[in-house]
C-alpha cells in the first residue's frame, strides 16, 4: 500500500557556480574552473529515472537518462545538448549536497477496532518502534492522520478519526515527544484504503497513518 508513495519521481542536481571564479588571483595551475551552470538528472536508488525539462527564454532540453546533464550559459541561451556526466563529475559537482540528503520519510499504520478510538494490543505493540524512529531521526515533523471506515455518518467519522490520531499522539507525548513536533489531523472516511459502499465495517480503513520525517 505504501510502497509506491516512497518512490521519488526524479533525482535532480543543480550546480550554479558564481561568476567570480575567473577573477580570483588564482595560482597558475590548475586553471580556474569554467563558469558553468549544470543541471543533471541523477538515477534513483531503485534504478528508475524520471524525466525533467530544463527551459529558459532561449529554449528547452529534456533529460531522461541517468546522469544526463545540460549546461546553461545564461537565461537567454538555450540549454546545451544533453551529455552524460561521469561518476567522478557527479561527485565533484554535487557531492557536498548529496552527502547531506536526508533519508526518506517512513510511514507506519495503526489499526483500530470498530467504532473505537482505543489503542488495541496490535497498535500498542507498534508504538514503541514509532517512538524509537522519531527519537533516532530527531524528527520535529510527525503527522498523525486519523481515518475511519464508512459505518456511521461523515461528521462523527471526522471526529472519530481525530480522536484516534489524538490517542496515538498522547502516547508519544507521554513519552517525551514535543507537542510542536506532532501534526494531528483527520480525514474521517474520505480516504478509504479499501473502497466500500456506505455503512460497511472494514478493518483496513480504520487506521491512523503516522509519517515520521
Amino acid at each position: 500500500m505504501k510502497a509506491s508513495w516512497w518512490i521519488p519521481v526524479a533525482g535532480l542536481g543543480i550546480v550554479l557556480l558564481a561568476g567570480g571564479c575567473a577573477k580570483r588571483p588564482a595560482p597558475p595551475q590548475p586553471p580556474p574552473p569554467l563558469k558553468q551552470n549544470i543541471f543533471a538528472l541523477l538515477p534513483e536508488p531503485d534504478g528508475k529515472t524520471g524525466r525533467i525539462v530544463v527551459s529558459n527564454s532561449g529554449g528547452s532540453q529534456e533529460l531522461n537518462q541517468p546522469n544526463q546533464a545540460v549546461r546553461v550559459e545564461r537565461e537567454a541561451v538555450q540549454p546545451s545538448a544533453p551529455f552524460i556526466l561521469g561518476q567522478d563529475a557527479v561527485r565533484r559537482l554535487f557531492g557536498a549536497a548529496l552527502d547531506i540528503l536526508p533519508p526518506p520519510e517512513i510511514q507506519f499504520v495503526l489499526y483500530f477496532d470498530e467504532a473505537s478510538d482505543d489503542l488495541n494490543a496490535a497498535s500498542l505493540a507498534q508504538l514503541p518502534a514509532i517512538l524509537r524512529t522519531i527519537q533516532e531521526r530527531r524528527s520535529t515533523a510527525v503527522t498523525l492522520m486519523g481515518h475511519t471506515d464508512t459505518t456511521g455518518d461523515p461528521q462523527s467519522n471526522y471526529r472519530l478519526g481525530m480522536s484516534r490520531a489524538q490517542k496515538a499522539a498522547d502516547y508519544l507525548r507521554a513519552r517525551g515527544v514535543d507537542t510542536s513536533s506532532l501534526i494531528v489531523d483527520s480525514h474521517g472516511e474520505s480516504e478509504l484504503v479499501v473502497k466500500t459502499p456506505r455503512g460497511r465495517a472494514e478493518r483496513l480503513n480504520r487506521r491512523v497513518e503516522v509519517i515520521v520525517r
Partner: protein
Amino acid sequence: MVATRLLTAIALFFWFALPAVCQQSIVGSLKAVRGTVVVRRGTESLPGQQGLHLMAQDIVQTSADGSVGLILQDGTRIALGPSTELKIDQFVYAPVDGKFGLLVRLTRGVMAYISGKIAQYSPESVRVETPVGIVGLRGTDFAISLGGG
C-alpha cells in the same frame, strides 16, 4: 452603537486575519546541518538548527562551509551545498482537495532534489526556478513535444 462597531471591527479582523494564520503551517523541517546555515523569514534571521520548522517564503542560506538537508511535508527531499541560497516560494499539499503546488527558487549554489508525493500526484505542479532556467518534472508515461529550441 460603539459596541456594534467594535464587534464589526473584530469580526472583520478575524475574517481577514484567519487565512494568513492558516498559511503559517509548517511546510518542512531541517534534518541535517553542517557549518553555518541561516533561515531568513521576513525580517528575521534564524540560526539553521536541526529540526527547525520551515514556512512558505523562507529563504535557506548556507555559508562557504555550510550544507543542509531538509524534508518537506510531502516527502520531497532537498540538500544544499556550500554558498547556496534557496527560497521556498510555494508549497501546497492537500491530496483530499486535489490541490498541489511546489515552487522553489535556487538563486545560487548547489542543490540536490528528490521528489515527494506532490510530484507523484501532480508532476506539472512542481517547478524549480534558477536565474538561468526553470526545471519542470514530466510524468513517466507520455511523450511531450517540447516548445522552442
